[in-house]
């Protein structure tokens, strides 16, 4: 059992740098999710941990051993690939047992471990099938089985659920969590789906353009995003972000948007009058109509999207569209006016130049 440490790692493909000074420390048994938009370097980082890409500078260590120079097979990591990478000529049982056979484990032990893994993943009745005769979800489970039989130090998952339909994805999410709960192996999980990240992670690493934007628990990222990128990336629908500046009126601080709407600010906010900021609040953190405060602003419904008991209401503040997640109401139909005030406790303020949280 060991911690995984990534220290000032840089990666270049020819002359283009795709990872910039990445630092991470992952505790033994933690479930880490790397999340970020397409092309931000998630797979690259994961493959560097696996040893499939070399490291241009910096160190990756497992326990207190630097593994930069180790061959992939000596790193004691196992990986689940996005397209599963099942060997098409081998049965499910042979696929799962492959790594053990390569390590010359005794046949009886292999059989036992394969049977156990299959049991855990509900694959027992499929053991003699070839991968091409399996459904997507079954293939996915075989790929997981292949990773677990070996009891590695670290599991690496590269977008393992992206080829599954929505329902199956939710199911597999639970199954992966369950397995992690059972085997407690350190896991690095790559996804570009923030919901996957929020629901599965002990700790989320938000990557953007090869830079680590923020590392933290799902709650930390949700409650205290350290910059506008994380703020808009985590949470669905995204946080509303309005540009404007600080004004004072009647001894209270307000945020004034470009169209001169005024939003009340919390008193303890560390900002001064005239400062240009980005004012952020999540769609779900607003009060409307009767519930709204005295400082509420008036808005007109542009579009409403019912999502069951709630409804997503879109409206414009100046020329900026905002989205509100509110209880469904017959009053919120396109063209209707309503009052809205963001909840004071859940307001996020960012520097308008750097995008950093204030």
């Amino acid at each position, binding site marked *: 059992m060991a911690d995984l440490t990534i220290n000032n790692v840089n990666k270049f493909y020819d002359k283009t740098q795709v990872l910039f000074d990445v630092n991470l420390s992952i505790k033994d048994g933690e479930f880490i999710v790397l999340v970020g938009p397409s092309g931000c370097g998630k797979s690259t980082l994961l493959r560097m941990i*696996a*040893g*499939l890409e070399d490291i241009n500078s910096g160190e990756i260590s497992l326990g207190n051993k630097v593994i930069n120079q180790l*061959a*992939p*097979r*000596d790193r004691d*990591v*196992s*990986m689940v*690939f*996005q*397209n599963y*990478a099942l*060997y*098409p*000529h*081998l049965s499910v049982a042979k696929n799962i047992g*492959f*790594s053990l*056979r*390569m*390590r010359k484990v005794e046949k009886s032990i292999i059989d036992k471990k394969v049977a156990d893994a299959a049991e855990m993943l509900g694959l027992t009745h499929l053991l003699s099938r070839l991968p091409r005769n399996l459904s997507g979800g079954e293939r996915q489970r075989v790929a997981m089985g*292949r990773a677990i039989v070996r009891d590695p130090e670290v599991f690496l998952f590269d977008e393992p659920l992206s080829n599954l339909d929505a329902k199956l994805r939710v199911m597999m999410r639970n199954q992966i969590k369950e397995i992690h709960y059972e085997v407690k192996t350190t896991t690095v999980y790559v996804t570009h789906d923030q919901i996957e990240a929020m629901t599965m992670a002990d700790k989320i690493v938000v990557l953007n353009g090869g830079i680590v934007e923020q590392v933290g628990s799902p709650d930390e990222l949700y409650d205290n995003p350290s910059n506008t990128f994380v703020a808009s990336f985590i949470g669905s629908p995204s946080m509303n972000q309005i540009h404007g500046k600080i004004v004072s009126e009647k001894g209270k601080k307000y945020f004034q948007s470009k169209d001169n709407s005024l939003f009340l600010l919390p008193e303890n906010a560390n900002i001064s009058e005239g400062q240009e900021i980005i004012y952020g609040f999540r769609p779900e953190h607003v009060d409307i109509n009767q519930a709204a405060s005295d400082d509420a602003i008036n808005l007109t419904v542009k579009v409403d999207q019912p999502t069951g008991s709630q409804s997503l209401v879109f409206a414009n503040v100046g020329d900026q569209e905002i989205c509100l997640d509110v209880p469904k109401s017959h009053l919120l139909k396109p063209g209707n006016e309503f009052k809205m005030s963001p909840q004071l406790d859940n307001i996020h303020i960012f520097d308008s130049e750097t995008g950093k949280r204030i």
Partner: protein
Amino acid sequence: MIRWDKRIKLLFLLPAVIWVLALTIAPLFFSLYLSFTDVKREVVITGVEEIPILDKDGNPKTRSDGSIRTKKVKQKELQIKYDWVGFKKYKRVVNDQEYQDAAKFTFIYVIISVFVEIVLGLFLAFLFNRRIYGRGFMRSLMILPIFATPFAIGFMFFTILFEVSGPLAWMGIPFLSNHNWAPFSVMLVDIWQWTPFCFLVFLAALQGIPDDLIEAATLDTKSAYKIWTSVILPLLQPIIVLVILLRVAESAKLYDYIASLTKGGPGTATQSVSFLVFNKAFKMNDFGYASAGSFLMLIVVMIFVMLFFTRLRKTYE
């Protein structure tokens, strides 16, 4: 959509059907028939005719009595007779030392050259399957032999291996005049021409293997040999079987190289079945023997092909 009448569809198919029947099926059955017959060419006198004798100006010569001088000319006709002889020709072929030798040579030739082509093709494909300098150029270069005419290549190698003044004469090896070396020389030609084909097919197949399969394997083993034997070769297997099939069917017909390189010699050391059969038919007019010999060969190759096809089908299903 236009719904064609079934009969009209057949009408459009007819030219193709006639083509196949006329040029493939009919000759095949005719030659099958020939293999059960003794073909005899006989000159039969069908009649006698009296014609005038002409002088050098083209006028009929006359006797002193004024009558025209004539001569009698037999009218001959070449008739080909097919005598049904049952399996006689097959018995002769099977028991013929010359046929046995030719079959043995052809067999060894096919086994060795196809084996070497496959192994060498795989090895080259392995070498070229990564980004190496000048890969595209080398690949184009290696395609060239495939386009050349086998007969011409035989001649080319004849000049290369020519023992008196050829470029390899200094080696002092009797490439074409020694009964041990000559078969080797013929195989060399086949290997030279067809290894590139195997190489190209295998390279394409290798490049079709998803990278993540290989990467998954490198997480489990450091040995390139193990990755080849337990992942790459099994994945290439259907292609390898197909290439073996094509190469065996093709090289078993060995004729061109022999005709231009060794003429079957020295002695009968490089006489292939096709070469022998061709000579029997068109030099010695023994069409029965030739047909029987060809059919025996065809049967052996077909059995082999069928065995391989069932194997191929199994791996695909």
